[in-house]
């Protein structure tokens, strides 16, 4: 019985101990939060950053390329007055440069003259004129050929008639008379062959000489046009020579054939294979055939002459086109040459100006002087070194400016904003107005503000502050109270509810939309009530639905501790 009573007592004791432990544990583990209420106010944006004092305006003095620097009279930070020497060139290098420029100008004059001469053109026979001449020649040859053909045709008729008469006369002759006539025919054929060979050799020699003469003329000719013309003549001369050879070969073959034919007849008559009368008949038929072949050849020659005229007419048209193209090419060359001359004239003008500048420099003893008063900020020239034309002596003129940087994503600054620039070494600040913005940087943007007559060393790095007020907003909360997740911006609001442990606060999520975001506060829109306690600080991670303990502290507006 006593054990049962002890059991009951132990149960109460156990429950009492657990009560104490659970309350202690609860008070230790419950997240403590600080809250604030949304206020109706303007959002203040404070932008802070760093910047550098830079020059307002720069003027540069470029060292002339090719001149050696003699002396440098200034260094960065030096103050210079107008007319004060900055640096000087070496006298020897200036003289060398002057000679070089003079030589260049002389060379340019020569080049221009050469171009002008090359533009001159002299009249000569054009290709069309040559072709026209060829055509006239061909037409004349055709006329002569036609006359020859007509003569040949008449001669052919006469020869046929003569052969017929001879043959008919021979029918009344005896065998012996026919044999004597056969011998005379053989002698005549032999003489014809010999005279043809001699004539061939004579005419071919003359044609060969013409070809050789043209070759020599081509070798001696310098003008391209002449060479072309001579080459054309050479080609024609070779063709004529070839035609002549073929013609004479035909005639010689014919004469040789005639001689062989007569010899064959004689042999057959002597061998008794035929009679002189039959041989005469054969001769008559062969002569008729030869006459027909001859007239046929004359016809073919006439046809060739007609073709030659047609070909020459076509060559005239082609030559006309070639002349036109050549004229255009000549015009193009002339224009190009004009342009080259103009370019050279410009170059010469520049060189002349350089020379004049150099002469002035030499007259001033090679010194480069400041055009206006200022402070030297950069000196790239060095005594003893030859300038490449890129070295500058830079001077700042017209006061200083402040160039600051800011985070481009925030985009809180704009043109016209007033900034306070800290003056290093003092408690004072300088008010300045942003007058230029540059947002081209990758991450940071830059702005510039005129410092007026403020005297600060160039390159001084100092801080700036810009305070801006937004419009009035109905609900403004500290940035600590603004949270963000995948769904967007939200606030955790500590809302009280009745529970077993009394009134307790639980964190409730309220989705909001950010209207304006300042540097410390943000204006929001959403289901946040005026009396809502927006959680701005907590001592451990809290989430939606968690019990919290609202504490009094910095930033919070609750006067007492509640849970």
């Amino acid at each position, binding site marked *: 019985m006593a054990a*049962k009573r002890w059991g*009951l007592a132990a*149960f109460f004791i156990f429950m009492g101990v*657990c009560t104490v432990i659970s*309350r202690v544990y609860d008070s230790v583990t419950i997240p403590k939060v600080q809250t604030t209420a949304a206020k109706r106010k303007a959002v203040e944006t404070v932008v802070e950053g760093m910047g550098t004092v830079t020059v307002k305006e720069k003027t540069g003095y470029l060292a002339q390329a090719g001149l050696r620097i003699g002396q440098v009279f200034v260094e960065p930070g030096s103050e210079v007055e107008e007319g004060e020497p900055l640096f000087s060139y070496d006298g020897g290098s200036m003289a060398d440069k002057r000679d070089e420029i003079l030589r260049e100008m002389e060379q340019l004059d020569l080049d221009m003259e050469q171009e002008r001469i090359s533009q001159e053109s002299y009249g000569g026979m054009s290709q069309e004129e040559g072709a026209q001449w060829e055509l006239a020649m061909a037409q004349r040859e055709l006329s002569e050929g036609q006359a020859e053909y007509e003569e040949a045709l008449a001669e052919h008729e006469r020869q046929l008639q003569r052969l017929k008469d001879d043959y008919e006369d021979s029918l009344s002759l005896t065998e012996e008379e026919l044999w004597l006539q056969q011998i005379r025919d053989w002698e005549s054929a032999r003489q014809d062959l010999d005279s043809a060979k001699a004539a061939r050799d004579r005419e071919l020699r003359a044609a060969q000489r013409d070809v050789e003469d043209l070759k020599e003329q081509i070798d001696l000719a310098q003008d391209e046009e002449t060479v072309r013309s001579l080459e054309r003549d050479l080609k024609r001369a070779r063709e004529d020579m070839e035609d002549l050879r073929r013609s004479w070969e035909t005639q010689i073959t014919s004469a040789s054939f005639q001689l062989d034919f007569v010899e064959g007849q004689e042999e057959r008559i002597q061998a008794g294979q035929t009679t002189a009368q039959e041989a005469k008949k054969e001769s008559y038929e062969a002569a008729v055939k030869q006459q027909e072949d001859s007239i046929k050849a004359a016809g073919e020659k006439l046809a060739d002459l007609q073709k030659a005229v047609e070909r020459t007419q076509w060559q005239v048209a082609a030559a006309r086109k070639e002349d036109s193209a050549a004229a255009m090419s000549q015009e193009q060359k002339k224009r190009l040459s004009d342009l080259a001359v103009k370019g050279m004239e410009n170059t010469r003008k520049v060189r002349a100006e350089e020379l004049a500048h150099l002469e002035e420099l030499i007259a001033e003893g090679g010194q480069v002087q400041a055009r206006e008063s200022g402070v030297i900020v950069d000196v790239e020239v060095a005594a003893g070194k030859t300038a490449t034309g890129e070295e500058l002596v830079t001077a700042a003129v017209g006061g200083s400016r402040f160039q600051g940087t800011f985070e481009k994503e925030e985009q809180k600054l704009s043109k016209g904003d007033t900034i306070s620039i800290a003056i290093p070494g003092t408690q004072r600040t300088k008010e300045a107005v942003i007058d230029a913005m540059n947002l081209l940087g990758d991450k940071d943007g830059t702005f510039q503000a005129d410092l007026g007559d403020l005297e600060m060393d160039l390159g001084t790095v100092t801080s700036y502050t810009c305070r801006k007020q937004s419009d009035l907003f109905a609900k403004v909360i500290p940035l600590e109270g603004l949270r963000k997740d995948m769904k967007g911006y939200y606030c955790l609001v500590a809302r009280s509810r009745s*529970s*077993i442990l*009394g009134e307790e606060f639980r964190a409730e999520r309220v989705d909001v939309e950010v209207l304006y975001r300042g540097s410390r506060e943000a204006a929001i829109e959403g289901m946040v009530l005026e009396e809502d306690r927006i959680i701005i600080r907590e001592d451990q991670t809290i989430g939606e639905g968690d019990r919290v303990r609202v504490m009094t502290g910095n930033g919070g507006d609750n006067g007492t501790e509640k849970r």
Partner: protein
Amino acid sequence: MKRRKGLIRAALFGICLLVWLPLLLMAAAVFMPEDELYWRYLSPLGLGRDRVRAALLPSYPSFGALGELLIRSPGFFVMFWNSCIQTLPMLLGQLVVGAPAAWAFARFRFPGRKVLFGMYVVLMVLPFQVTQVSNYLVLDRLGFLDKHLAMIVPGIWATLPVFIMTRSFETIPHVLVEAACLDGAGEWYGFFHIGLPLGYPGIVTALMLSFVDGWNCLEQPITYLKDKTLWPVALYLPDIAKDKASVAFGAALVTCMLPVLVYLNCQEELEQGVAASGVKQ
């Protein structure tokens, strides 16, 4: 004969196990981790339609639920002590008010006694809902609403303890009290020195039943107590969330421990008192 008794005992033991089965399953669930609990009791917890996989031993025993309840649930203890605060004064009041009343009904014969006792019996059998409104109005007039007194005061004047104690006092022989009176003892002397000692089992029985009734009451606190900080432990289980099912099982176990301990302490008197009431009836 012995074999027959053995069979009877085995049958009774089986029936007892059947009665105890829900309690055993509850005790096993207390030591189950959350995942196992959901796997086994998905359907009863309203989280699915999977079959129940009841077990008397957890696969992976854990004290996590008990630790959660006893260390990290201060609200449970608030309700536990609320129950104590509301139940113990009520029992004391019943002892102070009900025992003299029961002694009067058992000892004295006066006009209207039977009618008055009959009204007690009628009130005893009436369900709570019948007297709910009138009780609410009275408590409101007295200014007891949303106070522990709203639970204590109506309990003090409960009729069941008076009925049980009356039956218990009636078993005391009249001659015994009359003899004491002849020896000069007054009624209060007889009540304190004869009535209370001899009617002790009945008083304990009445208080025991009242304790269980008060400890488990649900409707009265819901009706009279709007302030949750005053709620008794009986309301803890309905208030607990589904995602703390294992804690709910632990809370049920701890909640029923006090009535069990009280019963174990008063088991002998309870049996005597019930027997006495039964004999008289």
